[in-house]
């Protein structure tokens, strides 16, 4: 019963934080500096790990699928499998998971620390709403950076698949042929579907991590607990939302 209460309370406070943050949208232009800083933290610092992971996800996908497809003599279609998988599913989901682990945890830790050391209370007494200064720039930044990260993830993943497809003996498909099949079967709508998913996942991850950070109570030990909770809740939400969004989009 207590856990159900906690879930409902978390759900309610997250919605409330969203509404409060959006009510300050008009202040975004004068928070441009904070927005750029968050774009840097969310986008630029996450980019290398997104690129590395996407490369190997594309590679492993080509390798695993290549062996099975070769049994049926269909390995020439490997480009379509890697292209669609990365664009519709693995690209957005993996980028969102990385965002939760790298950026979400950092956001939760920073805001939880500010809460525990009364910096958030200090903002409130100054009549500076934390939703405006701490949450809104992050939400705006993630909306801008998620598509960028996902597109880069997709491209690098496709590229990784192409390299494996060419240099693995049992597959041995030339990049021209690989990308021709990929282009034929991966449509613009598939990429857009993936980007829509990425936007939703990224937005939810940042919102949930901000909310958990700002609702931290107690001493320094609670900062660690909040970070763990933020990452776990984000991962669960990404996968649950993925199922329902996929149902809607297909």
């Amino acid at each position, binding site marked *: 019963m207590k856990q159900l209460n906690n879930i409902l309370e978390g759900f309610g406070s997250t919605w409330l934080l969203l509404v409060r943050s959006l009510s300050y949208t008009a202040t975004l232009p004068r928070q441009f500096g904070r927005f750029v800083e968050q774009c840097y933290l969310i986008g630029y610092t996450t980019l290398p790990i997104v690129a590395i992971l996407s490369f190997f996800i594309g590679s492993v996908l080509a390798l695993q699928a290549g062996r099975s497809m070769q049994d049926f003599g269909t390995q020439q279609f490997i480009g379509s499998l890697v292209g669609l998988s990365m664009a519709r599913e693995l690209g957005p989901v993996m980028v969102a998971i990385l965002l939760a682990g790298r950026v979400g945890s950092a956001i939760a830790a920073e805001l939880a620390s500010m809460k525990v050391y*009364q910096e958030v*209370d200090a903002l409130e007494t100054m009549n*500076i709403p934390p939703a405006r200064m701490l949450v809104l720039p992050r939400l705006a930044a993630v909306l801008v950076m998620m598509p960028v990260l996902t597109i880069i993830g997709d491209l690098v993943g496709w590229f990784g698949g192409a390299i494996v497809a060419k240099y693995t003996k049992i597959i041995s498909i030339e990049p021209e042929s690989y990308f021709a099949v990929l282009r034929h079967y991966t449509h613009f709508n598939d990429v857009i579907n993936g980007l829509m998913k990425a936007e939703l996942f990224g937005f939810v991850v940042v919102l949930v991590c901000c909310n958990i950070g700002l609702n931290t109570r107690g001493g320094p030990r609670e900062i660690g607990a909040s970070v763990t909770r933020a990452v776990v809740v984000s991962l669960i939400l990404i996968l649950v939302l993925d199922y329902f969004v996929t149902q809607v989009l297909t």
Partner: protein
Amino acid sequence: MPSSPSPAGATRNPFTQVETAAVGVSVEHLSKNFGSLQVLKDVTFSVEPGEIFVLMGPSGSGKSVLLKHIVGLELPTSGRVTVDGKDASSEATREQVRMALVFQSGALFNSLSVYDNLALYPREHQITDEAGIREKVMHALKILSLDGVDQKSPSDLSGGMKKRVAIARALVMEPQLMLYDEPTSELDPVTSATISEIIATLKQEYHVTTIVVSHDRELALNISDRVGILMDGALISLGPPSDLKAPTDPHIAEFLYPKIDLQHPRFKNLETTP
């Protein structure tokens, strides 16, 4: 620093020299529960505009929680707190009445320099342009004898300097009501005396209504107009600081003038054995 004293009930702003009304605070039958724990029990008192009110009490007696109710950071379980006649828990009150709380820890933003800590309020509220903000910030730092620390990080400052920076940050807000949470805790006697002097000077010069939460007897005796004593969440004494010199209540006497009795039973368990 401005020199002309303001008439009673008005604050002469240290930066703009414009007089604004000092505000009164009223706490009526305030009770607060955290779960089954009652932290405040039917507390009632008022603070007059321009007064220095010191609220004393042992650790855990509910002083800081009471302060948070006055600035609207906590909501009462029952009872009411008003600032300038307006409900303290309302967001509108914070927009209409400038209240500044100096936290026990200072609550400075470690990611910002001292300068940016002080500049945050006027920047966020677009009170003036950057040149005006700079003037306000440097003036506040000068008042608090903090020249030369503006580009430092709060983490590089000593405890006493952090408290002074926190007071300077509050001063930049041009407050009508200043609240201090344990301003002299964790400080040596000389720095404590300096902080007490600063609080008294700010009230004298700018006529700011001031509420100080503390368990520092010397601070209460030296700077307060009135003192309240909170024990176990209940206000058990309210009067002039002279009452503190010879308290009749044994609990208050024990709190204010504790005697060290090594024969007390509680010390028996501390005996060390070889």
